[in-house]
């Protein structure tokens, strides 16, 4: 969405315009779905979580504070937190069953963070620019909710290295998007399905 369109969308949402949700869905569902799927790795679960995400975008609309971040980031946080909660609650199920978490959610497979969902061709180009360990660290934090010390502990990486990798990854990402603005969808307006 173009920035003006996003502002308009946010205003409609704030004003309780019930029709805004289908526009939000058309603009963001594919991205949010991809990320939820990346975290929970079950299409059925991802569909449920996407539904709950959109319900919360509506019911929690008054909590969106544009001074704290972009609208997309806010929605992504809702989707991400729901997904992470779900994975963590699987932990409880696993405990009940005396199985380890890994059996059920495979939370520890480092390669899973690098797994590319087939449709995301755009990513392949980026992967060439971003070292795998940088991408992994960003994915673990941003998509899977790891804290820096959790990563340091679980992957045996010194905390300082975690920090510098994140910083480097962010700088590389920024350079990449500066050089490849065509890969950014934030500035393109999409056509919406009409209901």
């Amino acid at each position, binding site marked *: 969405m173009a920035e003006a369109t996003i502002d308009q969308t946010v205003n409609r949402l704030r004003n*309780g315009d*019930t029709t805004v*949700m*289908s526009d939000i*869905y*058309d603009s963001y*569902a*594919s*991205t949010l*779905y*991809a990320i939820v*799927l*990346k975290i929970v790795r*079950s299409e059925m679960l*991802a*569909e*449920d979580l*996407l*539904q*709950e995400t*959109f*319900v919360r975008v*509506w*019911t929690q609309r008054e909590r969106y504070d544009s001074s*704290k*971040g*972009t609208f*997309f*980031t806010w929605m*992504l*946080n809702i989707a991400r937190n729901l997904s992470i909660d779900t994975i963590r*609650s699987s932990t*409880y*199920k696993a*405990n*009940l069953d005396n199985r380890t978490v890994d059996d059920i959610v495979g939370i520890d497979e480092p390669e899973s963070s690098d797994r590319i*969902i*087939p*449709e*995301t061709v*755009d*990513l392949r180009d*980026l992967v060439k620019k971003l070292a795998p360990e940088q991408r992994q660290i*960003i994915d673990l*934090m941003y998509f899977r*909710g790891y*804290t*820096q010390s959790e*990563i340091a502990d679980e992957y045996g990486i010194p905390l300082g290295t975690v*920090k*510098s990798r*994140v910083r480097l*990854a*962010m700088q590389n*990402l920024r350079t990449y*998007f500066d050089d490849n603005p065509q*890969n*950014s*969808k*934030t500035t393109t307006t999409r056509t919406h399905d009409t209901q």
Partner: protein
Amino acid sequence: MSGNAHDIISSGILDLYVAGALTAEEISDVERMIATEPEIASEVVRLQRTLEQYAQLHSSKPRPELRSRVLTAVAEAQRAEQPLTHVPGATQRDVPRTTQRTQRPPARRSWLMAASIAFLLGLMPGVYYFMEYNGVKSELTQTQVELADAKSTQSVMASKANYMEDAMGKLADTNVVRVAMPGMPIAKASFATVWWNKGTQEVMIDMHKMPECPAGHDYQLWAIVDGKPVDLGVFNPERDAEKLMKMHTVGKPQMFAVTLEPIGGSPSPTLEKMVVAGAIRS
């Protein structure tokens, strides 16, 4: 740019902040800086945009059917909040409509039940707004008249009303945490809500959206405390008159779950029959 802001930016803490890898304490530090230092605020927005662009490279089209499913769920949430806001178009009809789904009406007793439940449903999110809502207020008056009537003829109904009043009082407590329990893959249409009081440790379950149990079965509510299931009692929407029911108390639950068990419940949960579950959000 101030030297301070520059140091903070190059320290990498903002990168960790936008990636969501800081502790709650560190997050509030950063948010304070965002509020006071414009350079930091704009750097954070730039970093968020970068991650946003990265996130948007991920795209996976959900099944087309999902769109109407999601939008229907959103529409339900929108309808559900109508009595709360002063939407001019919202009419009293909204309230009984909700109850009709949960009630199979034989005669007047069930009307009274419906009215009480409507009353209760409306009250859950906030007594204040509900009372403000005049249309429902008159419904409430009617309910009270009916209630008085019922009291003289049916002491059963009176105790039901007491139960509900008591339940309402419990829900209004600020210590009460609402835990939504969406349906698991084996029971997608199920949904239950637990209301847990942090102070008194009381637990109530709202079973309005739970389908009937298969013959010979009850639902059993469990709390997960330190990874261990704790039995909070059984319920059965067909059998229990109160759709909002008090269960056993529990101290420090991390999660609630409902399983299907043989009538009367089981000493430990049958995990394959877990129908709904939800974690407490801290």
